[in-house]
C-alpha cells in the first residue's frame, strides 16, 4: 500500500497525467511540493522570474498543444501574481491546472504571513477551484481538475493546498485512474436538420468562427462546410488560422478592427452560422445592430452561450466537430456566385491595407516580411495593442493554434511568456513574439527565462514609445487630449536584452533593415529585434466602442 505525503501525491499524479513541463516559482508555502518535484525524473521545471510569467508560459504550452498545462505558485503574492494569467485562461477557455501553496490549516483565516484568500479570489476567474482540506482528497481532486480543465469548454482550475496538507502522510490502496481524454457531454444535435435547411435556403450566409472551433479540432470540418456551400467566412481574433488567410472564402477577422469590406458584408448577410463564438462586443460592435437582417445558427459546447447575447433561430449545444459532421451530409453543394461576387466587389472597393512599402516605421510589410522569414511552421504570439491588431490583420496564418494571443482579457505582458511556452512545447519550431514597447515592459523579466531555457523565441518590439492604442483613442475620442499614453524616456531594449544574455538587433537607423532581419531570424536561439514604429501609425479602420460595426473610421485609403 503506498504511503506518501500530500506533496508526493501531487507530483506522482502529475507524472501519471503525462505532465513533462511545469512552470513556477517556489516560496515558503509550496516548498514541500518543490521538494517532491526535485525528486521527479520525468518532469522538467521551468523557473520563471515572476508568477505571471509562469502562468503565461503554461498558457503558451496549453494554447499551442491543446493539452492542459500546469503552473505552480506560492501563497500570498505568488498567488495574486498568477491570477492575471488565470483570468486570461478563463476568458479564452484555455485548459490550465494551477497549484498554489497556502498557509497551514491551523493558520487559515488568521492573516498569517503571505496569507490571502486564494480560493475566494480565484473563484470568479476559474472554471472550478479547490481549497484542499486533507491530503487524501488530493487523490480525487487531481484527476478531476484535469478532467474539468480539458473537457467541455476548457478552462483553468486552481488547487490551493495548505502547507500542512502537503506534508500530511496518507496511506491508500491504489492510485486513481489519471484523466487522459477530454470527456464531453453528449451533443444535442436535434436542431441540426433545421440548421442545414436554413443554410440551404439562405442566399447570403456567413460563417462566423471562433476559438471553440480550434478547441474542438474542427478546422478541417469548418473549411469543408465553407467550401461545400461556398460560404464566406469571418473569424474572431481567437479563430484566426481556421481558414488560411489567403483562402478565397476567408474575410479575415470581423469586428472593431476588421477590414471595411468584412463588416459591410456582415451587414448584408441573411444567415449567420456562428460556431465556437460568444458574440463578444469587440467582434459584434453594438449587438442590436449586428447582422441586423440575419437569422442565426449558433453552435457552442457551452449551452449558456446560446442565446446569451443574440437569440438563436437554431441552437446546437455541441462540440463544433460533431455539429459540423452532422451538418455536412445535409448541406447542399452550392456556388453562391452572386453572393461571392458581391463580396469580391466590396473587397475591391475597400482594400484591406493602404499601399505600403517595406520600411521601418510602417507595420504591414514588416509583418509580411517576418512571416516569410519565419516560414509556415512558425508559432506566433502577440502582446496587446496596435501591434496585436496589425498582426491579426496582416499575418498570413495557415493553421489553427498558430496564433497565441490574449483575446478576452487583453492582457499586456502575455506575448513573451506565451512564446516561451510555445517554444518549450515545440522545440523544433520557430517562434515569433510580436510585442510593443508598452507590453514588453510588463513581463520583460522573462527575457531571462527565454535565454536560460534555450528557447528559439524571436521577440520583435514594435516600438512607438507609447501606449499606442490608448493614444489612438485619445486622438479619436478625447479631442487629442493625450495624457499618460506616451513615455518620456526612450528605453534601449537591445541593451536590456543583452543584459539578459540575449542577442539583440536594432532596425533603427539600420543601413539594410532586410539584411538585419534575415540575420536575426536565421541564427538559432532567442533574440530581440527593436523596430521603430511611427507614433501616428494607427490601427484602422476602427469601430468606436459601443458603435455599430458599420461605423468605421480612420481608413481613409478605403473610402472611395
Amino acid at each position: 500500500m503506498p504511503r506518501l505525503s500530500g506533496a508526493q501525491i501531487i507530483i506522482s499524479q502529475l507524472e501519471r497525467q503525462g505532465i513533462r513541463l511545469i512552470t513556477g516559482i517556489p516560496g515558503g508555502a509550496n516548498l514541500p511540493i518543490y521538494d517532491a518535484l526535485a525528486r521527479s525524473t520525468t518532469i522538467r521545471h521551468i523557473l520563471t522570474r515572476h508568477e505571471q510569467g509562469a502562468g503565461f508560459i503554461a498558457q503558451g504550452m496549453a494554447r499551442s498543444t491543446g493539452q492542459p498545462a500546469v503552473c505552480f505558485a506560492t501563497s500570498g503574492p505568488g498567488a495574486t501574481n498568477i491570477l492575471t494569467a488565470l483570468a486570461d485562461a478563463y476568458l479564452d477557455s484555455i485548459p490550465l491546472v494551477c497549484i498554489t501553496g497556502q498557509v497551514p490549516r491551523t493558520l487559515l483565516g488568521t492573516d498569517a504571513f503571505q496569507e490571502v484568500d486564494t480560493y475566494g479570489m480565484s473563484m470568479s476567474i476559474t472554471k472550478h477551484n479547490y481549497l484542499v482540506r486533507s491530503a487524501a482528497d488530493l487523490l480525487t481532486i487531481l484527476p478531476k481538475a484535469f478532467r474539468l480543465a480539458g473537457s467541455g469548454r476548457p478552462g483553468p482550475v486552481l488547487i490551493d493546498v495548505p502547507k500542512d496538507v502537503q506534508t500530511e502522510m496518507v496511506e491508500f490502496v491504489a492510485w486513481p485512474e489519471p484523466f487522459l481524454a477530454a470527456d464531453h457531454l453528449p451533443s444535442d444535435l436535434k436542431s441540426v436538420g433545421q440548421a442545414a435547411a436554413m443554410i440551404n435556403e439562405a442566399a447570403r450566409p456567413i460563417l462566423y468562427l471562433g476559438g471553440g472551433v480550434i478547441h474542438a479540432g474542427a478546422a478541417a470540418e469548418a473549411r469543408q462546410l465553407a467550401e461545400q456551400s461556398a460560404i464566406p467566412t469571418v473569424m474572431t481574433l481567437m479563430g484566426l488560422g481556421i481558414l488560411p488567410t489567403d483562402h478565397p472564402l476567408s474575410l479575415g477577422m470581423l469586428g472593431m478592427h476588421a477590414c471595411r469590406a468584412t463588416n459591410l458584408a456582415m451587414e448584408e448577410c441573411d444567415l449567420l452560422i456562428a460556431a465556437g463564438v460568444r458574440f463578444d462586443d469587440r467582434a459584434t460592435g453594438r449587438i442590436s445592430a449586428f447582422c441586423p437582417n440575419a437569422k442565426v445558427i449558433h453552435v457552442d459546447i457551452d449551452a449558456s452561450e446560446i442565446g446569451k447575447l443574440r437569440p438563436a433561430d437554431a441552437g446546437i449545444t455541441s462540440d463544433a466537430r460533431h455539429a459540423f459532421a452532422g451538418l455536412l451530409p445535409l448541406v447542399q453543394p452550392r456556388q453562391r456566385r452572386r453572393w461571392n461576387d458581391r463580396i469580391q466587389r466590396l473587397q475591391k472597393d475597400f482594400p484591406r491595407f493602404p499601399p505600403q512599402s517595406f520600411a521601418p516605421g510602417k507595420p504591414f510589410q514588416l509583418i509580411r516580411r517576418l512571416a516569410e522569414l519565419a516560414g509556415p511552421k512558425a508559432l506566433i504570439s502577440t502582446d496587446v495593442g496596435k501591434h496585436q491588431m496589425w498582426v491579426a490583420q496582416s499575418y498570413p496564418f495557415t493553421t489553427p493554434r498558430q496564433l497565441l494571443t490574449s483575446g478576452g482579457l487583453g492582457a499586456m505582458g502575455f506575448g513573451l511568456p506565451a512564446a516561451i511556452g510555445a517554444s518549450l512545447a515545440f522545440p523544433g519550431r520557430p517562434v515569433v513574439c510580436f510585442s510593443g514597447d508598452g507590453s514588453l515592459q510588463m513581463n520583460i523579466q522573462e527575457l531571462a527565462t527565454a535565454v536560460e531555457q534555450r528557447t528559439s523565441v524571436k521577440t520583435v518590439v514594435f516600438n512607438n514609445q507609447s501606449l499606442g492604442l490608448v493614444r489612438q483613442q485619445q486622438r479619436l475620442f478625447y479631442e487629442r487630449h493625450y495624457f499618460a499614453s506616451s513615455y518620456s524616456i526612450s528605453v534601449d531594449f537591445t541593451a536590456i536584452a543583452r543584459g539578459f544574455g540575449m542577442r539583440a538587433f536594432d532596425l533603427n537607423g539600420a543601413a539594410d533593415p532586410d539584411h538585419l532581419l534575415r540575420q536575426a531570424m536565421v541564427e538559432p536561439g532567442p533574440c530581440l529585434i527593436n523596430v521603430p514604429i511611427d507614433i501616428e501609425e494607427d490601427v484602422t479602420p476602427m469601430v468606436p466602442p459601443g458603435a455599430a460595426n458599420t461605423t468605421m473610421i480612420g481608413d481613409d485609403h478605403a473610402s472611395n
Partner: protein
Amino acid sequence: MPATDADLTAATLASPTTILRLTVNNHPGVMLQICGLFARRAFNLEGILCTAIGQGDASRIWLTIDAADKLDQIVKQLAKLEDVLAIEERPDAREQVGDMAAMMARIG
C-alpha cells in the same frame, strides 16, 4: 437601534418571483459560488435559504429570484457550476418559501 415595522415584515416584491431548488455539494465555499455568480453576472437574487441534507455531504438551497430576470441564463450558468448537482424551477414552492421568509421576519 430599535427594529422598525419595515424590518419585521418580509419585503413585498413588486415584480413576480419564481423559486429555484438547488442540490449542491456541501462545503464551505459553495454559498460563495452561488452568491458570487449572481453578483458577477448581475442577476437579481431576492432571497436564499440553505440547509444541509442527507448525511451532510449535500445541501439544499432555495433561491427566490425575479422571474422576469434572464431566467434561462441564470439556470444555465448555475448548471455550469461544478458544485451544483441539480436544479429545478419550482414556482409551486413560492408560497412555502414565502411562509419561511415571513417566519424569519417574525423572529425579528
